[in-house]
């Protein structure tokens, strides 16, 4: 069995509306040595029949149907497990590749294990004004932070991600091509997250391996009223606040992020990650009280990540003032000790 160079993964769920265009854009790539894995999570529309039609025409399509509904993140992970290619490319059911996307993304130095291109957003009519505003104005990408820079080291990524936290600076998964070895080194996407799981996963990779950036829009990301991103905008607490909390937890406590922490602390020596996290955990806990469902969800996550409840209790009272006083006292004590020791030396000599 020959191993293909690239695996294109399309996890699908009720995506019949745009799926044909997506498949078409993948199959008409100028770079042909790939397998296309479609992993359907129990769609109730024509998704299955569309894929079956294309499968008859093109033998590179491998089609899998999950016996049970796994949910979005687990479906991604499932597709990732099935991939055999050397490089992995996620493509979602409503996204598009430009015809030369793969070819251009593969023209990178051998050392790079992650490639990211610019994104082109397709804003379909009917989306909420707020969402449109987000994509048109507030969106911040690597190209805006490091204009003209191609080879971004893990330090660059870490600092940019920290400064613009929690904005997704890397972009949607469709813009990224990564090497398979990353799976064995950094694991799979975290299924406890709802909206930020893709950002967390690619940040985990990029904050260890760095990123090669192509300043050319090679892929299009479609935002339409039914898309996952637009839907997620509705339920605020679970999808924004709690995801944010888990993301922070991972950054502060996960050993995969130790390079991230070191890079940030190099530039900002007084950075206290745990304290920031503790503050956010308390804040989230208070916000969760407004709705019993939210509180239940918070407690469920806190049971899974015990560091949350541990930090929640870690109050620092009058922290800044207190620290300043303590700092002055300890400085003085040090000074006194030094003076004493310098005085006592000649005595001893005598």
């Amino acid at each position, binding site marked *: *069995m020959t191993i293909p160079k690239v695996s294109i993964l399309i996890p699908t769920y009720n995506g019949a509306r745009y799926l044909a265009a997506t498949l078409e854009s993948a199959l008409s790539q100028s770079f042909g040595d790939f397998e296309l894995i479609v992993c359907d999570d129990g769609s109730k529309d024509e998704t299955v029949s569309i894929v079956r039609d294309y499968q008859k025409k093109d033998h590179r399509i491998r089609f899998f149907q999950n016996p049970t509904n796994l949910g979005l993140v687990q479906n991604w*992970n499932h597709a*990732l*497990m099935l991939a055999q290619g050397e490089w992995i490319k996620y493509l979602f059911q409503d996204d598009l590749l430009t015809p030369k996307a793969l070819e251009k993304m593969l023209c990178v130095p051998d050392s790079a294990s992650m490639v990211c291109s610019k994104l082109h957003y397709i804003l379909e009519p009917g989306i909420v004004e707020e969402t449109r505003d987000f994509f048109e104005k507030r969106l911040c990408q690597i190209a805006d932070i490091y204009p003209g820079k191609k080879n971004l080291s893990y330090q660059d990524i870490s600092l940019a991600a920290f400064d613009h936290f929690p904005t997704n600076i890397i972009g949607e998964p469709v813009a990224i091509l990564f090497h398979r*070895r990353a*799976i*064995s080194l950094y*694991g*799979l996407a975290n299924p*406890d997250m709802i909206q930020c799981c893709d950002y967390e996963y690619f940040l985990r990779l990029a904050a260890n391996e760095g990123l090669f950036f192509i300043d050319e829009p090679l892929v299009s990301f479609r935002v339409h009223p039914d898309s996952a991103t637009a839907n997620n905008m509705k339920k605020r607490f679970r999808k924004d606040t709690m995801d944010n909390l888990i993301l922070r937890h991972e950054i*502060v*406590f996960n*050993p995969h992020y*130790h390079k991230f*922490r*070191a890079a*940030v*602390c190099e530039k900002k*020596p*007084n*950075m*206290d*990650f*745990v*304290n920031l996290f503790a503050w956010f955990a308390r804040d989230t806990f208070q916000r969760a009280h407004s709705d019993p469902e939210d509180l239940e969800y918070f407690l469920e996550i806190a*049971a*899974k*990540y*015990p*560091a949350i409840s*541990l*930090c929640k*209790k*870690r*109050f*620092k009272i009058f*922290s800044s003032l*207190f*620290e300043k006083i*303590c700092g002055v006292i300890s400085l003085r004590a040090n000074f006194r000790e030094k003076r004493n020791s310098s005085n006592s030396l000649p005595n001893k000599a005598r």
Partner: protein
Amino acid sequence: MSPKISVCIPTYNGEAFLENCLKSVLSQTFQDIEVVIADDRSKDRTLEIARHFAETDKRIKVYRNPVNCGPTNNFNWCLYLAQGEWVKFIFQDDLMASPDFLERMISQVDDAIGIACCRRQYVFDPGVDEGLMRWFKEKLKQWDDVYPGQTKISAREVCRAALDVFPMNLFGEPSALLLKRDLIREYGMFNTNFIHSTDAELSLRIASNRGLVFISDSPVIIHYHAKSTSSHNATHRRYSRDVLDHLVLLHEINFHPVFDRMREEARNGHPPVDLLGKFSYEVRMARAKAGEDPVCQEQLRKMERLYPAIRLCAGRVKIFSTALNKVFGKVGLINAKPIRYY
């Protein structure tokens, strides 16, 4: 078509044993296997022996790592290269006791559980430390000592037993394990931050969620000699092995979402096990044991950088913990001094 079992042999300077090990693998009655040999740039004839065998048997695939990457990374590399549905590790100096070893194992495994562990028999070379030998003979527990006569052990029972004998490794060396490859992707690979107990952590990570099948009737022979990885660590890296590994294992059990069930079991046990208290205690002990030794201190500092929760818990002293705890609930003292975390 991918084979049913990938037999993975991570090798390093094993010319003296590899031949016997390979013979015991190739003479198995279960034939649908591939043998993955990942050589970590041995300085002796190991690679030559492996290639020689590969010429005679097409099921053997020999790989050589681009650089020497250490034992744990080599295990992970093996997992990465394996293509079979199930993965069976066997170390270069270990042996499959009988030719029907794999056949018996694969006939008893359960697809829904996905992890099986067999009985271990230890063989010692003359050079091995007396105390170590005695410990293995008298103290070591296997699954049939905990649950005699039971082949299927539920996730709950795994957690309970692991907490009872903590930190003893009931699963044994990777040579005793048979894993489903999908599970490795689901639960992750070997944690490279361990020196010695990385295998114990991986098997516990999977079995505490999935349960375990214990196979008592076909043993694997595990060879202890003066130079094997296990005893080499004992003389040279005692601090990392005894103190830091234990610390990281406790950290993972306390803070990793995968060990959720284990923590639940600890909370509901009779009496409940205070894992967090245990961890804080171990952190303080680790600091005390590091003492003034700069190498040990550096090792501990490195771990603290990787796992910031270590520092978080270091200040969590419990005075008269049991009595006070009952009165006030959980009381933890907090460091007034700001600590820089990274």
